[in-house]
Protein backbone atom coordinates (compact mmCIF):
# COMPACT_ATOMS: atom_id res chain seq x y z
CA UNK A 1 0.00 0.00 0.00
CA UNK A 2 2.51 2.51 -1.10
CA UNK A 3 0.64 5.76 -1.18
CA UNK A 4 3.02 7.37 -3.68
CA UNK A 5 2.18 4.81 -6.31
CA UNK A 6 -1.52 4.45 -5.75
CA UNK A 7 -3.69 7.49 -5.40
CA UNK A 8 -6.67 5.30 -4.51
CA UNK A 9 -5.12 4.28 -1.19
CA UNK A 10 -7.24 5.72 1.59
CA UNK A 11 -7.32 5.31 5.35
CA UNK A 12 -9.96 6.95 7.58
CA UNK A 13 -7.37 8.15 10.10
CA UNK A 14 -5.68 10.22 7.39
CA UNK A 15 -8.68 12.52 6.99
CA UNK A 16 -8.42 14.65 10.14
CA UNK A 17 -11.24 16.98 9.15
CA UNK A 18 -13.67 14.05 9.13
CA UNK A 19 -12.89 13.33 12.76
CA UNK A 20 -13.32 16.98 13.70
CA UNK A 21 -16.74 16.96 12.02
CA UNK A 22 -17.58 13.69 13.77
CA UNK A 23 -16.61 15.10 17.18
CA UNK A 24 -18.81 18.15 16.52
CA UNK A 25 -21.72 15.90 15.48
CA UNK A 26 -21.36 13.82 18.66
CA UNK A 27 -21.22 16.96 20.80
CA UNK A 28 -24.25 18.40 19.01
CA UNK A 29 -26.12 15.14 19.60
CA UNK A 30 -25.42 15.28 23.33
CA UNK A 31 -27.68 17.80 25.08
CA UNK A 32 -24.82 19.40 27.05
CA UNK A 33 -25.53 22.86 25.73
CA UNK A 34 -29.29 22.96 26.28
CA UNK A 35 -31.10 24.25 29.38
CA UNK A 36 -31.81 21.35 31.76
CA UNK A 37 -35.40 20.30 32.39
CA UNK A 38 -36.93 22.04 29.38
CA UNK A 39 -39.40 19.90 27.41
CA UNK A 40 -41.13 22.19 24.94
CA UNK A 41 -41.48 22.98 22.12
CA UNK A 42 -42.71 19.60 20.98
CA UNK A 43 -42.02 18.58 17.38
CA UNK A 44 -44.47 15.91 16.13
CA UNK A 45 -45.24 15.26 19.79
CA UNK A 46 -41.57 14.74 20.68
CA UNK A 47 -39.45 17.16 22.75
CA UNK A 48 -37.33 19.40 20.51
CA UNK A 49 -34.04 18.38 22.14
CA UNK A 50 -34.77 14.73 21.38
CA UNK A 51 -35.43 15.59 17.73
CA UNK A 52 -32.10 17.44 17.63
CA UNK A 53 -30.32 14.48 19.18
CA UNK A 54 -31.93 11.99 16.80
CA UNK A 55 -30.98 14.18 13.83
CA UNK A 56 -27.31 14.28 14.86
CA UNK A 57 -27.34 10.56 15.68
CA UNK A 58 -28.44 9.88 12.11
CA UNK A 59 -25.65 12.17 10.91
CA UNK A 60 -23.20 10.25 13.14
CA UNK A 61 -24.22 6.90 11.61
CA UNK A 62 -24.19 8.33 8.09
CA UNK A 63 -20.70 9.77 8.48
CA UNK A 64 -19.38 6.54 10.01
CA UNK A 65 -20.90 4.48 7.23
CA UNK A 66 -19.55 6.86 4.58
CA UNK A 67 -16.07 6.64 6.11
CA UNK A 68 -16.19 2.86 5.79
CA UNK A 69 -17.21 2.90 2.17
CA UNK A 70 -15.44 5.97 0.81
CA UNK A 71 -12.41 6.67 2.95
CA UNK A 72 -11.06 3.16 3.45
CA UNK A 73 -9.10 1.49 0.74
CA UNK A 74 -5.73 0.08 1.71
CA UNK A 75 -5.43 -3.33 0.07
CA UNK A 76 -8.76 -3.91 -1.63
CA UNK A 77 -7.45 -3.76 -5.19
CA UNK A 78 -4.59 -6.10 -4.37
CA UNK A 79 -6.90 -8.56 -2.64
CA UNK A 80 -9.43 -8.48 -5.44
CA UNK A 81 -6.68 -9.04 -7.98
CA UNK A 82 -5.30 -11.94 -5.93
CA UNK A 83 -8.78 -13.44 -5.59
CA UNK A 84 -9.31 -13.21 -9.35
CA UNK A 85 -5.94 -14.86 -9.88
CA UNK A 86 -7.26 -17.73 -7.79
CA UNK A 87 -5.08 -17.56 -4.70
CA UNK A 88 -7.41 -15.77 -2.34
CA UNK A 89 -10.36 -16.88 -0.29
CA UNK A 90 -11.83 -20.18 0.62
CA UNK A 91 -14.44 -22.27 -1.05
CA UNK A 92 -17.09 -21.91 1.62
CA UNK A 93 -17.43 -18.16 1.77
CA UNK A 94 -20.90 -16.83 2.53
Amino acid at each position, binding site marked *: MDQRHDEHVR*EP*IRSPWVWVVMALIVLAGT*PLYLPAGVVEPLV*FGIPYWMVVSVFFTIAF*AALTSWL*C*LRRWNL*VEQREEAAAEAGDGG*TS*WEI
Partner: protein
Amino acid sequence: MGNLSFGGTSGILVLVAYAVIMLVIGYFAGREQPGVRTSVRGYFLAGRGLGFVALFFTLYATQYSGNSVIGYAPEAYRSGFAWWQSVMFMIAVIAVYLVFAPRLYVIAKRESFVTPTDWIRHRFGSTRVSILVAILMLWGLANYLLEQLVAMGQGISGLTGNTVPYQIGVIAFVLVMLTYSWMGGMRAVALTDIMQGIALLIGVGVLLFGSLYLIEGDIGGLTQHVVATAPEKVGVPDMETSVNWLSMIVLIGFGAAVYPHAIQRVYAARSERTLKRSLAIMAWMPFLTTGVVFVVGIVGIKLFPGLSEASSEQLVGMMANEVAGINIFFYLLMILLFGGVIAAIVSTADSALLSLSSVISHDLYGRYINPRSSEQRQVLVGKLVGIAVIAVLLLIAWNPPTTLYNIFVLKFELIVQIAPAFILGLYWDRLRAGPVFWGMLAGALFAGVWTVMGEEELYGVPAGLLGLGINLAIAALGSVAMPRRHDAGETSAPAKAAAG
Protein backbone atom coordinates in the same frame (compact mmCIF):
# COMPACT_ATOMS: atom_id res chain seq x y z
CA MET B 1 -37.22 -11.39 33.59
CA GLY B 2 -40.86 -11.94 34.36
CA ASN B 3 -42.56 -15.18 33.51
CA LEU B 4 -44.87 -15.32 30.54
CA SER B 5 -48.45 -16.16 31.24
CA PHE B 6 -48.45 -18.93 28.68
CA GLY B 7 -47.35 -22.41 29.66
CA GLY B 8 -43.81 -23.58 29.16
CA THR B 9 -44.39 -26.19 26.46
CA SER B 10 -44.29 -23.88 23.45
CA GLY B 11 -41.30 -22.07 24.95
CA ILE B 12 -39.49 -25.37 25.42
CA LEU B 13 -40.31 -26.36 21.83
CA VAL B 14 -38.81 -23.13 20.49
CA LEU B 15 -35.69 -23.54 22.61
CA VAL B 16 -35.24 -27.16 21.55
CA ALA B 17 -35.69 -26.16 17.90
CA TYR B 18 -33.08 -23.42 18.28
CA ALA B 19 -30.69 -25.82 20.00
CA VAL B 20 -31.06 -28.40 17.24
CA ILE B 21 -30.48 -25.81 14.51
CA MET B 22 -27.34 -24.57 16.28
CA LEU B 23 -25.99 -28.11 16.61
CA VAL B 24 -26.67 -28.93 12.97
CA ILE B 25 -24.95 -25.73 11.83
CA GLY B 26 -21.99 -26.50 14.12
CA TYR B 27 -21.72 -30.02 12.76
CA PHE B 28 -21.60 -28.92 9.14
CA ALA B 29 -19.33 -25.98 9.94
CA GLY B 30 -16.74 -28.35 11.39
CA ARG B 31 -17.14 -31.05 8.78
CA GLU B 32 -16.53 -28.88 5.76
CA GLN B 33 -13.69 -26.84 7.16
CA PRO B 34 -10.09 -27.92 6.66
CA GLY B 35 -7.73 -27.40 9.61
CA VAL B 36 -10.40 -26.77 12.22
CA ARG B 37 -8.79 -29.25 14.63
CA THR B 38 -5.16 -28.87 13.65
CA SER B 39 -4.61 -25.16 13.10
CA VAL B 40 -5.10 -22.28 15.54
CA ARG B 41 -6.04 -20.00 12.65
CA GLY B 42 -8.48 -22.57 11.35
CA TYR B 43 -10.16 -23.02 14.72
CA PHE B 44 -10.03 -19.53 16.24
CA LEU B 45 -10.27 -17.40 13.07
CA ALA B 46 -12.19 -19.63 10.63
CA GLY B 47 -9.05 -19.71 8.48
CA ARG B 48 -9.49 -15.94 7.86
CA GLY B 49 -12.31 -16.75 5.51
CA LEU B 50 -15.42 -14.99 6.82
CA GLY B 51 -17.39 -13.57 3.94
CA PHE B 52 -19.76 -10.63 4.02
CA VAL B 53 -22.91 -12.28 5.38
CA ALA B 54 -21.16 -14.34 8.05
CA LEU B 55 -18.92 -11.44 9.08
CA PHE B 56 -21.77 -8.96 9.30
CA PHE B 57 -23.96 -11.24 11.38
CA THR B 58 -21.15 -12.34 13.65
CA LEU B 59 -20.26 -8.69 14.28
CA TYR B 60 -23.91 -7.94 14.91
CA ALA B 61 -24.83 -10.92 17.08
CA THR B 62 -21.64 -10.53 19.10
CA GLN B 63 -21.98 -6.80 19.70
CA TYR B 64 -25.63 -7.02 20.71
CA SER B 65 -26.32 -9.44 23.49
CA GLY B 66 -29.50 -10.35 25.31
CA ASN B 67 -28.61 -7.55 27.70
CA SER B 68 -29.15 -5.08 24.85
CA VAL B 69 -32.82 -6.01 25.10
CA ILE B 70 -33.61 -7.14 28.63
CA GLY B 71 -31.13 -4.78 30.34
CA TYR B 72 -31.52 -1.67 28.16
CA ALA B 73 -35.34 -1.47 28.12
CA PRO B 74 -35.41 -1.06 31.92
CA GLU B 75 -32.61 1.49 31.60
CA ALA B 76 -34.77 3.53 29.19
CA TYR B 77 -37.68 3.10 31.60
CA ARG B 78 -35.63 4.54 34.49
CA SER B 79 -33.60 7.20 32.64
CA GLY B 80 -36.25 8.27 30.16
CA PHE B 81 -35.25 9.96 26.90
CA ALA B 82 -31.64 10.34 28.06
CA TRP B 83 -31.19 6.63 27.26
CA TRP B 84 -31.11 7.58 23.59
CA GLN B 85 -27.39 7.62 24.37
CA SER B 86 -27.44 3.83 23.85
CA VAL B 87 -27.90 4.39 20.13
CA MET B 88 -25.02 6.86 20.01
CA PHE B 89 -22.58 4.74 21.98
CA MET B 90 -23.29 1.72 19.80
CA ILE B 91 -22.50 3.79 16.68
CA ALA B 92 -19.37 5.02 18.46
CA VAL B 93 -18.11 1.42 18.63
CA ILE B 94 -18.05 1.31 14.83
CA ALA B 95 -16.47 4.77 14.61
CA VAL B 96 -13.66 3.59 16.91
CA TYR B 97 -13.20 0.49 14.77
CA LEU B 98 -12.41 2.87 11.92
CA VAL B 99 -9.59 4.38 13.92
CA PHE B 100 -7.61 1.14 14.03
CA ALA B 101 -9.23 -1.70 12.07
CA PRO B 102 -8.11 -0.67 8.55
CA ARG B 103 -4.43 -0.74 9.42
CA LEU B 104 -4.63 -3.58 11.94
CA TYR B 105 -6.37 -5.77 9.36
CA VAL B 106 -3.46 -5.38 6.94
CA ILE B 107 -0.80 -6.05 9.59
CA ALA B 108 -2.71 -8.98 11.10
CA LYS B 109 -3.05 -10.64 7.74
CA ARG B 110 0.59 -10.12 6.87
CA GLU B 111 1.89 -11.29 10.25
CA SER B 112 -0.70 -14.08 10.71
CA PHE B 113 -1.98 -12.84 14.06
CA VAL B 114 -4.38 -15.05 16.01
CA THR B 115 -5.09 -13.02 19.14
CA PRO B 116 -5.04 -9.30 19.92
CA THR B 117 -1.97 -9.93 22.09
CA ASP B 118 -0.07 -10.94 18.95
CA TRP B 119 -0.23 -7.34 17.81
CA ILE B 120 0.95 -6.04 21.20
CA ARG B 121 3.88 -8.46 21.19
CA HIS B 122 4.73 -7.56 17.61
CA ARG B 123 4.57 -3.86 18.32
CA PHE B 124 6.25 -3.58 21.70
CA GLY B 125 8.26 -6.79 21.97
CA SER B 126 7.59 -6.75 25.70
CA THR B 127 6.57 -9.73 27.80
CA ARG B 128 5.16 -7.69 30.66
CA VAL B 129 3.00 -5.55 28.35
CA SER B 130 1.74 -8.68 26.56
CA ILE B 131 0.89 -10.46 29.82
CA LEU B 132 -0.87 -7.42 31.29
CA VAL B 133 -2.93 -7.03 28.11
CA ALA B 134 -3.79 -10.75 28.24
CA ILE B 135 -4.86 -10.49 31.89
CA LEU B 136 -7.06 -7.45 31.26
CA MET B 137 -8.63 -9.16 28.27
CA LEU B 138 -9.27 -12.35 30.24
CA TRP B 139 -10.86 -10.35 33.05
CA GLY B 140 -13.13 -8.54 30.62
CA LEU B 141 -14.05 -11.68 28.71
CA ALA B 142 -14.75 -13.72 31.85
CA ASN B 143 -16.97 -10.97 33.23
CA TYR B 144 -18.74 -10.64 29.91
CA LEU B 145 -19.30 -14.37 29.76
CA LEU B 146 -20.58 -14.45 33.31
CA GLU B 147 -23.12 -11.77 32.46
CA GLN B 148 -24.34 -13.83 29.50
CA LEU B 149 -24.70 -16.95 31.64
CA VAL B 150 -26.76 -15.08 34.22
CA ALA B 151 -28.94 -13.55 31.51
CA MET B 152 -29.30 -16.91 29.78
CA GLY B 153 -30.70 -18.58 32.87
CA GLN B 154 -33.12 -15.74 33.59
CA GLY B 155 -34.25 -15.69 29.98
CA ILE B 156 -34.82 -19.41 29.75
CA SER B 157 -36.75 -19.68 32.99
CA GLY B 158 -38.79 -16.62 31.96
CA LEU B 159 -39.61 -18.01 28.55
CA THR B 160 -40.66 -21.39 29.82
CA GLY B 161 -42.67 -20.09 32.75
CA ASN B 162 -40.13 -21.68 35.11
CA THR B 163 -40.91 -25.10 33.60
CA VAL B 164 -37.19 -25.20 32.95
CA PRO B 165 -35.45 -24.09 36.13
CA TYR B 166 -32.69 -21.51 35.95
CA GLN B 167 -29.76 -23.92 36.42
CA ILE B 168 -31.01 -26.62 34.05
CA GLY B 169 -31.66 -24.03 31.34
CA VAL B 170 -28.18 -22.60 31.56
CA ILE B 171 -26.47 -25.99 31.59
CA ALA B 172 -28.48 -27.21 28.60
CA PHE B 173 -27.62 -24.21 26.44
CA VAL B 174 -24.01 -24.13 27.61
CA LEU B 175 -23.68 -27.76 26.47
CA VAL B 176 -25.16 -26.87 23.09
CA MET B 177 -22.80 -23.91 22.78
CA LEU B 178 -19.74 -25.93 23.80
CA THR B 179 -20.65 -28.72 21.39
CA TYR B 180 -20.96 -26.60 18.27
CA SER B 181 -17.95 -24.50 19.23
CA TRP B 182 -15.93 -27.68 19.74
CA MET B 183 -16.96 -29.01 16.34
CA GLY B 184 -16.55 -25.92 14.22
CA GLY B 185 -14.64 -23.22 16.13
CA MET B 186 -15.02 -19.66 14.84
CA ARG B 187 -16.75 -20.82 11.69
CA ALA B 188 -19.48 -22.55 13.69
CA VAL B 189 -19.77 -19.50 15.93
CA ALA B 190 -20.08 -17.17 12.92
CA LEU B 191 -22.56 -19.36 11.05
CA THR B 192 -24.76 -19.84 14.10
CA ASP B 193 -24.54 -16.05 14.50
CA ILE B 194 -26.41 -15.68 11.21
CA MET B 195 -29.35 -17.60 12.61
CA GLN B 196 -29.01 -15.98 16.04
CA GLY B 197 -28.71 -12.46 14.61
CA ILE B 198 -31.84 -12.92 12.51
CA ALA B 199 -33.66 -14.31 15.57
CA LEU B 200 -32.62 -11.22 17.57
CA LEU B 201 -33.77 -8.82 14.84
CA ILE B 202 -37.13 -10.58 14.60
CA GLY B 203 -37.44 -10.64 18.38
CA VAL B 204 -36.76 -6.93 18.76
CA GLY B 205 -39.11 -6.19 15.86
CA VAL B 206 -42.03 -8.10 17.37
CA LEU B 207 -41.42 -6.51 20.76
CA LEU B 208 -41.71 -3.06 19.17
CA PHE B 209 -44.80 -4.10 17.24
CA GLY B 210 -46.47 -5.49 20.35
CA SER B 211 -45.56 -2.44 22.45
CA LEU B 212 -46.90 0.00 19.88
CA TYR B 213 -50.06 -2.09 19.57
CA LEU B 214 -50.63 -1.73 23.31
CA ILE B 215 -50.50 2.09 23.09
CA GLU B 216 -52.40 2.03 19.77
CA GLY B 217 -49.46 3.55 17.94
CA ASP B 218 -49.93 6.92 19.62
CA ILE B 219 -46.33 8.14 20.08
CA GLY B 220 -47.41 11.76 20.58
CA GLY B 221 -49.87 10.69 23.25
CA LEU B 222 -47.13 8.62 24.86
CA THR B 223 -44.86 11.65 25.16
CA GLN B 224 -47.66 13.78 26.55
CA HIS B 225 -48.42 11.09 29.09
CA VAL B 226 -44.79 10.95 30.21
CA VAL B 227 -44.59 14.76 30.31
CA ALA B 228 -47.61 14.77 32.61
CA THR B 229 -46.58 11.90 34.88
CA ALA B 230 -42.77 11.86 34.86
CA PRO B 231 -41.48 15.16 33.43
CA GLU B 232 -37.93 14.47 34.67
CA LYS B 233 -37.71 11.63 32.11
CA VAL B 234 -38.60 13.82 29.14
CA GLY B 235 -36.88 17.15 29.74
CA VAL B 236 -33.34 18.05 28.72
CA PRO B 237 -31.12 16.00 31.07
CA ASP B 238 -29.14 17.82 33.76
CA MET B 239 -25.47 18.58 33.15
CA GLU B 240 -24.21 15.52 35.05
CA THR B 241 -26.40 13.18 33.00
CA SER B 242 -25.27 14.82 29.77
CA VAL B 243 -21.61 14.53 30.79
CA ASN B 244 -22.26 10.87 31.59
CA TRP B 245 -23.93 10.47 28.18
CA LEU B 246 -20.81 11.80 26.45
CA SER B 247 -18.56 9.72 28.72
CA MET B 248 -20.43 6.54 27.84
CA ILE B 249 -19.94 7.28 24.13
CA VAL B 250 -16.18 7.42 24.70
CA LEU B 251 -15.98 4.58 27.24
CA ILE B 252 -18.15 2.07 25.40
CA GLY B 253 -16.94 3.22 21.97
CA PHE B 254 -13.33 2.44 22.84
CA GLY B 255 -14.04 -0.39 25.29
CA ALA B 256 -16.29 -2.47 23.02
CA ALA B 257 -14.15 -1.92 19.93
CA VAL B 258 -11.01 -3.32 21.57
CA TYR B 259 -12.74 -6.35 23.04
CA PRO B 260 -10.71 -9.41 22.00
CA HIS B 261 -13.61 -11.06 20.19
CA ALA B 262 -14.26 -7.78 18.35
CA ILE B 263 -10.63 -7.54 17.23
CA GLN B 264 -10.58 -11.19 16.20
CA ARG B 265 -13.46 -10.51 13.85
CA VAL B 266 -11.24 -7.97 12.12
CA TYR B 267 -8.60 -10.71 11.81
CA ALA B 268 -11.12 -13.26 10.55
CA ALA B 269 -12.47 -11.12 7.70
CA ARG B 270 -11.90 -12.68 4.33
CA SER B 271 -11.02 -9.35 2.73
CA GLU B 272 -10.92 -5.64 3.35
CA ARG B 273 -13.96 -5.30 1.16
CA THR B 274 -16.08 -7.65 3.29
CA LEU B 275 -14.87 -5.96 6.47
CA LYS B 276 -15.69 -2.40 5.45
CA ARG B 277 -19.04 -3.33 3.93
CA SER B 278 -20.01 -5.16 7.12
CA LEU B 279 -18.99 -2.23 9.31
CA ALA B 280 -20.78 0.26 7.03
CA ILE B 281 -24.06 -1.54 7.75
CA MET B 282 -23.19 -2.05 11.42
CA ALA B 283 -23.12 1.75 11.80
CA TRP B 284 -26.89 1.74 11.21
CA MET B 285 -27.78 -1.29 13.34
CA PRO B 286 -28.12 0.63 16.63
CA PHE B 287 -31.32 2.22 15.28
CA LEU B 288 -32.80 -1.23 14.68
CA THR B 289 -31.68 -2.64 18.00
CA THR B 290 -30.94 -0.30 20.93
CA GLY B 291 -33.11 2.40 19.30
CA VAL B 292 -36.09 0.05 19.17
CA VAL B 293 -35.44 -1.17 22.71
CA PHE B 294 -35.32 2.48 23.81
CA VAL B 295 -38.84 3.05 22.44
CA VAL B 296 -40.03 -0.10 24.20
CA GLY B 297 -38.63 1.16 27.52
CA ILE B 298 -40.41 4.51 27.07
CA VAL B 299 -43.68 2.72 26.27
CA GLY B 300 -43.12 0.85 29.54
CA ILE B 301 -43.29 4.17 31.44
CA LYS B 302 -46.90 4.50 30.34
CA LEU B 303 -47.91 0.88 30.72
CA PHE B 304 -46.23 0.15 34.05
CA PRO B 305 -45.80 3.41 35.95
CA GLY B 306 -43.96 3.61 39.25
CA LEU B 307 -41.85 0.46 39.17
CA SER B 308 -38.93 0.27 41.59
CA GLU B 309 -35.43 -0.25 40.21
CA ALA B 310 -35.55 -3.98 40.99
CA SER B 311 -39.06 -4.43 39.55
CA SER B 312 -38.19 -2.46 36.44
CA GLU B 313 -35.55 -5.10 35.62
CA GLN B 314 -38.50 -7.36 34.80
CA LEU B 315 -39.92 -4.86 32.31
CA VAL B 316 -39.42 -6.88 29.11
CA GLY B 317 -41.02 -9.92 30.72
CA MET B 318 -43.98 -7.85 31.90
CA MET B 319 -44.47 -6.27 28.49
CA ALA B 320 -44.20 -9.61 26.73
CA ASN B 321 -46.80 -10.97 29.13
CA GLU B 322 -49.13 -8.10 28.30
CA VAL B 323 -48.61 -8.45 24.56
CA ALA B 324 -48.97 -12.25 24.63
CA GLY B 325 -52.31 -11.84 26.36
CA ILE B 326 -53.85 -9.98 23.38
CA ASN B 327 -54.42 -13.03 21.17
CA ILE B 328 -52.76 -16.16 19.81
CA PHE B 329 -50.92 -14.19 17.11
CA PHE B 330 -49.16 -11.98 19.64
CA TYR B 331 -48.60 -14.96 21.89
CA LEU B 332 -46.63 -16.64 19.10
CA LEU B 333 -44.72 -13.43 18.40
CA MET B 334 -43.64 -13.22 22.02
CA ILE B 335 -42.27 -16.73 21.87
CA LEU B 336 -40.17 -15.54 18.94
CA LEU B 337 -39.02 -12.59 21.06
CA PHE B 338 -37.75 -14.74 23.88
CA GLY B 339 -36.17 -17.18 21.46
CA GLY B 340 -34.41 -14.17 19.92
CA VAL B 341 -33.19 -12.98 23.31
CA ILE B 342 -31.80 -16.41 24.14
CA ALA B 343 -30.17 -16.64 20.70
CA ALA B 344 -28.58 -13.22 21.23
CA ILE B 345 -27.19 -14.26 24.59
CA VAL B 346 -25.79 -17.54 23.25
CA SER B 347 -24.25 -15.81 20.24
CA THR B 348 -22.43 -13.33 22.45
CA ALA B 349 -21.35 -15.96 24.95
CA ASP B 350 -19.90 -18.30 22.33
CA SER B 351 -17.79 -15.51 20.83
CA ALA B 352 -16.47 -14.44 24.22
CA LEU B 353 -15.71 -18.06 25.14
CA LEU B 354 -13.86 -18.74 21.90
CA SER B 355 -11.82 -15.58 22.32
CA LEU B 356 -11.05 -16.42 25.93
CA SER B 357 -9.90 -19.91 24.90
CA SER B 358 -7.64 -18.43 22.23
CA VAL B 359 -5.96 -16.02 24.67
CA ILE B 360 -5.26 -18.82 27.15
CA SER B 361 -4.16 -21.43 24.62
CA HIS B 362 -2.22 -19.19 22.22
CA ASP B 363 -0.94 -16.35 24.42
CA LEU B 364 -0.31 -18.16 27.68
CA TYR B 365 -0.05 -21.92 27.02
CA GLY B 366 1.56 -21.83 23.58
CA ARG B 367 3.82 -18.90 24.42
CA TYR B 368 4.95 -19.49 28.00
CA ILE B 369 3.77 -22.82 29.42
CA ASN B 370 4.55 -25.16 26.55
CA PRO B 371 6.16 -23.21 23.70
CA ARG B 372 6.98 -26.39 21.78
CA SER B 373 3.38 -27.57 21.67
CA SER B 374 1.85 -28.28 18.28
CA GLU B 375 -1.01 -26.16 16.99
CA GLN B 376 -3.29 -29.17 17.29
CA ARG B 377 -2.43 -29.40 20.99
CA GLN B 378 -3.00 -25.67 21.46
CA VAL B 379 -6.45 -25.98 19.91
CA LEU B 380 -7.24 -28.89 22.21
CA VAL B 381 -5.98 -27.00 25.28
CA GLY B 382 -8.11 -24.03 24.24
CA LYS B 383 -11.21 -26.19 24.03
CA LEU B 384 -10.59 -27.87 27.39
CA VAL B 385 -9.76 -24.59 29.15
CA GLY B 386 -12.96 -23.12 27.74
CA ILE B 387 -14.96 -25.90 29.36
CA ALA B 388 -13.14 -25.43 32.69
CA VAL B 389 -13.71 -21.66 32.65
CA ILE B 390 -17.41 -22.14 31.89
CA ALA B 391 -17.69 -24.58 34.81
CA VAL B 392 -16.19 -22.03 37.22
CA LEU B 393 -18.33 -19.18 35.87
CA LEU B 394 -21.46 -21.30 36.16
CA LEU B 395 -20.80 -21.70 39.87
CA ILE B 396 -20.58 -17.92 40.17
CA ALA B 397 -23.67 -17.45 37.99
CA TRP B 398 -25.87 -19.30 40.48
CA ASN B 399 -25.72 -16.15 42.60
CA PRO B 400 -26.34 -13.44 40.03
CA PRO B 401 -25.14 -9.96 41.02
CA THR B 402 -27.42 -6.90 41.22
CA THR B 403 -28.62 -5.29 38.02
CA LEU B 404 -27.19 -6.38 34.70
CA TYR B 405 -26.20 -2.91 33.66
CA ASN B 406 -23.84 -2.44 36.58
CA ILE B 407 -21.81 -5.48 35.57
CA PHE B 408 -21.76 -4.20 32.02
CA VAL B 409 -20.10 -0.96 33.04
CA LEU B 410 -17.64 -2.73 35.33
CA LYS B 411 -16.08 -4.73 32.53
CA PHE B 412 -15.51 -1.70 30.33
CA GLU B 413 -13.68 0.02 33.19
CA LEU B 414 -10.77 -2.38 32.75
CA ILE B 415 -10.89 -3.52 29.13
CA VAL B 416 -10.78 0.05 27.85
CA GLN B 417 -7.32 0.42 29.40
CA ILE B 418 -5.77 -1.60 26.58
CA ALA B 419 -6.98 0.94 23.98
CA PRO B 420 -3.94 3.30 24.07
CA ALA B 421 -1.47 0.44 23.53
CA PHE B 422 -3.59 -0.89 20.71
CA ILE B 423 -4.56 2.22 18.86
CA LEU B 424 -1.81 4.72 19.62
CA GLY B 425 0.72 1.96 19.04
CA LEU B 426 -0.45 1.70 15.43
CA TYR B 427 0.33 5.27 14.55
CA TRP B 428 2.87 6.73 16.94
CA ASP B 429 6.44 5.50 16.55
CA ARG B 430 7.60 6.94 19.83
CA LEU B 431 5.13 5.06 22.03
CA ARG B 432 7.29 2.83 24.22
CA ALA B 433 6.68 -0.36 26.15
CA GLY B 434 7.61 0.92 29.63
CA PRO B 435 5.23 3.90 29.77
CA VAL B 436 2.51 1.83 28.08
CA PHE B 437 2.83 -0.84 30.78
CA TRP B 438 2.78 1.59 33.70
CA GLY B 439 -0.01 3.65 32.17
CA MET B 440 -2.17 0.59 31.60
CA LEU B 441 -1.49 -0.74 35.11
CA ALA B 442 -2.18 2.63 36.75
CA GLY B 443 -5.37 3.16 34.73
CA ALA B 444 -6.66 -0.35 35.50
CA LEU B 445 -5.85 -0.10 39.21
CA PHE B 446 -7.44 3.33 39.49
CA ALA B 447 -10.60 2.28 37.68
CA GLY B 448 -10.83 -1.05 39.52
CA VAL B 449 -10.25 0.34 43.01
CA TRP B 450 -12.57 3.31 42.44
CA THR B 451 -15.33 0.98 41.31
CA VAL B 452 -14.80 -1.62 44.04
CA MET B 453 -14.78 1.10 46.70
CA GLY B 454 -18.19 2.14 45.37
CA GLU B 455 -17.14 5.76 44.85
CA GLU B 456 -19.53 8.05 43.04
CA GLU B 457 -18.79 9.15 39.49
CA LEU B 458 -17.00 12.48 39.22
CA TYR B 459 -19.54 14.87 37.64
CA GLY B 460 -20.91 11.98 35.59
CA VAL B 461 -17.52 10.75 34.35
CA PRO B 462 -17.09 6.99 35.03
CA ALA B 463 -13.96 5.76 36.79
CA GLY B 464 -12.94 3.80 33.68
CA LEU B 465 -12.68 7.01 31.70
CA LEU B 466 -10.70 8.76 34.44
CA GLY B 467 -8.39 5.73 34.51
CA LEU B 468 -8.08 5.94 30.73
CA GLY B 469 -7.02 9.59 31.04
CA ILE B 470 -4.33 8.66 33.59
CA ASN B 471 -3.27 5.74 31.42
CA LEU B 472 -2.99 7.87 28.30
CA ALA B 473 -1.10 10.64 30.10
CA ILE B 474 1.50 8.22 31.53
CA ALA B 475 1.93 6.38 28.22
CA ALA B 476 2.25 9.55 26.14
CA LEU B 477 4.28 11.75 28.49
CA GLY B 478 6.51 8.85 29.51
CA SER B 479 7.23 8.04 25.86
CA VAL B 480 7.99 11.65 25.03
CA ALA B 481 10.34 11.87 28.03
CA MET B 482 12.33 8.82 26.91
CA PRO B 483 15.17 9.30 24.43
CA ARG B 484 14.33 8.44 20.82
CA ARG B 485 15.44 5.05 19.55
CA HIS B 486 16.45 4.45 16.00
CA ASP B 487 16.98 0.70 15.98
CA ALA B 488 14.69 -1.63 14.13
CA GLY B 489 13.03 -2.90 17.30
CA GLU B 490 9.84 -1.79 18.88
CA THR B 491 9.52 1.57 17.13
CA SER B 492 9.36 0.19 13.64
CA ALA B 493 5.91 -1.35 13.56
CA PRO B 494 3.78 1.65 12.55
CA ALA B 495 6.20 2.61 9.83
CA LYS B 496 6.30 -0.96 8.57
CA ALA B 497 2.53 -1.14 8.68
CA ALA B 498 2.16 2.00 6.63
CA ALA B 499 4.67 0.72 4.14
CA GLY B 500 2.59 -2.43 3.69
